[in-house]
């Protein structure tokens, strides 16, 4: 047997040894004819007789002398299959690849103010708080997003017309302004994904996004989730894929199909928490997945319309680490149920035209033990735990049915009055907006069952000069139909400075005043009591995208 193996080895190696020399010679000859453009940036070009294969990668083509990998080399194994060009191998063509740097930043100096009940002679009666101590925290039901917070996102794209890599670095608290280092505020690589956009096949076009990213459905703004900063239908995030197909039925009408699957890169392990540096996660939380499917249409013309029907399910079926979490007295994780939340929704939007830009969306969620879920933002709550505390009710572990309706309408008088001539915002304009969200809850938690929540608002912005505009906003928030004394109002005048009519940046000086009800209180994770809430805030907000 051993002799056979030796014979096979010899049979394989002998032709290699015999042909190697001629292979070099032939390669060199063919190279001189066919690959005149090939260059090898290595020493002694004139002196070393090099056989240079065509660019591109085929096993056996390396012509770089090196005893180790470069410090630039990624610390990852070979790509599966060996069919893609490995890192740093010379490419056959440049493929039209281009680098693009985009981003967004919004940083806000926000100071909320209140009065101290019994100040000493060494104390001011007026107190100043940053981070503001108000009802308005990110994604909260009671939030009106009147004073936006900080978010910095750097986006690095590299790709061509078919494939593009996107990596986003982000933070919600730029380090220089931190009073303490909140490790998890620096997301570093927050999203990393590929987008494939192959050439259309007839009237069918396709887009495939694969990697770690976020989808948003039911956003009420033209380019964002809207004035209340909460997608009405849902926002799956994680690692996975989303496939979009668009079929042009006619020049003006298309149907759209979309499907996606997402999961998490890891699960919280026993022994990991709770720790303050990672927001006290619990190993009793299972790894969750999201599956979503959508069908919609797009109608172009003077009044473009777009609509869709949506189905999303967020679920887990994970038996690991079934140990009771003392923080969740309402769920016995030793016999942890498989949590799930199914959402069906619909939306209709009128895309920006002389009649304005508007959207209406509705969703119905059926949640079971949603406290244990992760991977989908629903109505502003980034995790099942937050959603349960804010909306579903903790008794029953987040078992509830929720109906959410949201609408937003923005109207540009300039665009309307200039019609049929186009108006691109390069002149004075008055913009009016109205927006509202309504939520009805049926929950296993008596404190939440039957609750009707609504908030509505209006904003008027007058752009009088290329560099200056003034705005005023009013919001009315009724967070609990069972207690009208929780209802409150918010007014927020603003001065807006910028470099030109259609600039990408603005500096906003705003004053916000909350007119609280007697029982108004904060929401998770900042459950401020009525006496702790500040009722006014001054903010200087800087924002730019590129």
């Amino acid at each position, binding site marked *: 047997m051993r002799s056979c193996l030796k014979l096979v080895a010899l049979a394989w190696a002998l032709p290699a040894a015999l042909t190697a020399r001629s292979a070099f010679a032939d390669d060199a000859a063919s190279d001189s004819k066919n690959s005149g453009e090939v260059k090898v940036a290595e020493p002694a070009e004139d002196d070393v007789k090099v056989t240079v294969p065509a660019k591109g990668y085929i096993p056996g083509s*390396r012509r770089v002398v090196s005893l180790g990998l470069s410090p630039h080399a990624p610390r990852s194994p070979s790509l599966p299959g060996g069919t893609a060009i490995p890192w740093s191998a010379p490419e056959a063509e440049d493929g039209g690849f281009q680098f693009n740097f985009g981003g967004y930043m919004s940083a806000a100096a926000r100071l909320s103010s209140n009065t101290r009940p019994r100040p000493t002679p060494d104390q001011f009666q007026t107190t100043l708080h940053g981070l503001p101590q108000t009802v308005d925290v990110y994604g909260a039901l009671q939030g009106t997003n009147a004073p936006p917070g900080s978010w910095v996102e750097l986006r690095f794209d590299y790709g061509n017309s078919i494939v593009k890599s996107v990596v986003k670095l982000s933070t919600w608290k730029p380090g220089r302004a931190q009073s303490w280092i909140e490790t998890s505020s620096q997301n570093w690589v927050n999203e990393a994904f590929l987008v494939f956009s192959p050439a259309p096949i007839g009237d069918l076009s396709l887009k495939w996004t694969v990697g770690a990213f976020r989808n948003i459905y039911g956003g009420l703004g033209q380019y964002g989730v809207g004035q209340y900063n909460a997608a009405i239908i849902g926002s799956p995030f994680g690692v996975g894929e989303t496939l979009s197909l668009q079929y042009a039925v006619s020049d003006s009408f298309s149907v759209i199909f979309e499907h996606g699957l997402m999961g998490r890169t890891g699960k919280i392990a026993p022994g990991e928490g709770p720790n303050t540096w990672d927001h006290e996660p619990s190993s009793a939380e299972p790894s969750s997945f999201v599956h979503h499917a959508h069908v919609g249409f797009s109608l172009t013309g003077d009044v473009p319309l777009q609509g869709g029907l949506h189905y999303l399910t967020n679920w887990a079926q994970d038996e690991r680490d079934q140990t009771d979490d003392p923080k969740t007295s309402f769920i016995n994780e030793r016999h942890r149920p498989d949590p799930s939340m199914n959402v069906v929704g619909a939306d209709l939007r009128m895309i920006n035209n002389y009649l304005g830009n508007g959207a209406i969306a509705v969703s119905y969620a059926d949640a079971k033990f949603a406290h244990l879920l992760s991977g989908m933002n629903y109505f502003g709550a980034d995790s099942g735990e937050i959603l349960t505390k804010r909306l579903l009710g903790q008794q029953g572990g987040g078992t509830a049915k929720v109906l959410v309706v949201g609408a937003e309408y923005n109207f540009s008088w300039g665009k309307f009055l200039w019609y049929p001539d186009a108006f691109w915002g390069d002149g004075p304009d008055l913009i009016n907006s109205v927006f509202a969200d309504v939520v009805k809850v049926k929950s296993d938690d008596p404190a939440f069952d039957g609750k009707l929540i609504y908030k509505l608002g209006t904003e008027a912005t007058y752009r009088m000069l290329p560099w200056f505009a003034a705005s005023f906003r009013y919001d009315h928030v009724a967070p609990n139909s069972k207690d009208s004394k929780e209802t409150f109002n918010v007014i927020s005048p603003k001065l807006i400075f910028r470099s030109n009519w259609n600039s990408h940046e603005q500096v906003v000086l705003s004053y916000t005043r909350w007119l609280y009800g007697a029982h108004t209180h904060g929401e998770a994770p900042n459950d401020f009591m009525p006496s702790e809430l500040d009722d006014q805030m001054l903010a200087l907000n800087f924002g730019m995208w590129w």
Partner: protein
Amino acid sequence: MNNYLGFSHAARWALLGALSTAVLGAASTARAEDKKDAKKDAAAEVGLGLAPGSPQVGTLPGGIQPSYGQRSEDETDYRFDYHGMLNMPLRVGLNKRTGPVTSDQSKNVLHAPPVVPDYQDTFGYTSVVPQPYAQLAFSYGNNVVTGTAVIVARTASTASSFFQPPLQSGITDAFVTFNLPNLAKNTHVEANVGAFSNAYGAMGEYDLGHYGTPIIGRINGVGETIAARYGLGDLVIDVEQGIQAQFDKAPVGIPSEGWNAFADPVAGTSLVHHEHLGIGYRRQLTLGLHYIQAWSQDDRASQALAPDGTITTLAADLRFSASHLGHFYGAAALTKAEHAASVGRIVQTMNADGGRGLIHNYLGTNSQEGTGSLLTIGGEYNLSLAHLLLYPRTFDGKSHDLVLSVFGMYTRVQSKDKAKDADGNWIYDGINMLKVGAEGAYTLTSWFAFGGRLDHVSPQSEFPGRDFNIVSPRVIFRSDWQSRDQVVLQYSHFLYGKHPLVKSGYPLQDDPNLNPDADMISLSANMWW
């Protein structure tokens, strides 16, 4: 008198005067513009403090460099460059729930990440389970000098269940590369200085290979590496040398927790020096000899009479990029550890961090603070069947091809830890470890390929029950024949022995009671640029 153009003398003077006035006026306007620009520039440069964004560092030593933000005389040669890689996989382990199942539970369970024995710092690592990885490298420089800063993440925050700071490493590398091609005839010198990593023993033709493990070692630290190459006819003599150290040492008293990657106060400030000699033949055949020594001589780590620790690796490797005959790489490495517990992660042996990694994965906790040795032999062979069959015609990789690979690795451990199990078998000393695998992929169209991979892993020769095999069929989608992007949909079936061993907890510890997943599905997006 009129001249040939018909202008009178007076008219010529008048014209000249007008022209002069126009030119002078224009010059004067230009001067005014220049002055205006200069004033504008001066105004832009006036400031009573440093501009926001200025580096928070002192003056650079010597004071001979232009300062940060100062315009250099010749900016034209310099350019910005951006490179990187991302690999983001969705991985799901499939299993069945053991014990009773309630009405609120499903019998089938889904695990992310999968519960399978594929841990990067252990011998059993095959890289069959794709790992999240993103690297962004930002460079700025010219053909002589380039500064590079690298950001690395082994997760993406939007997809992680909880925030693990060690997986979001931030800026991992920051170094300056000097390329000096003309120091002498036929000589090329390249030097890297700063904080960076070198890997030796990469089994892939351009990367770490199918096991994602540098068989000789990886060096992480701050310092320098110089490589000098000298061309001599068909030969290239390659000499490399480097010395690196660590910025700091985990202070005594620091809690060993997840946020600090389980800092090890037992490890001292560690250093490494490494020397390499290679001979290349026509840039196709390279024979290398390698010597790496990492050590610590820190009284805070090796206190009282405790000896200082060392990890020494002596290795040889051979790489043959044999054109149509494919690519072959083989290496043998002998790593000797002496009281290595005090050696930090400045060196990685078989992906295991410093002395602690060796103790944890190979030598055992009773190995006299990490005393023992590893003899490792490994190799990989890659072949394009189309290239071979079409030879002597050239093959550019832009049509059907069957790409084949075989790879294997063997390690023998000798340790001072003489622990035995209940059956009298050695647990650490004299243990042999073996893994072999094969992979094939057929490129059917420019955008589609399919293939599979087979792996056999025997991580502990004394415990055949720990052996396992993996069968991994996969389909591959990409943008072109020779693309650098792909999306891989893979199914892996794990065939375990009688006593499979996986890990749980944080940090991961062996958990013999955990039932591993037999099946895994992954969808991974890969691209480099």
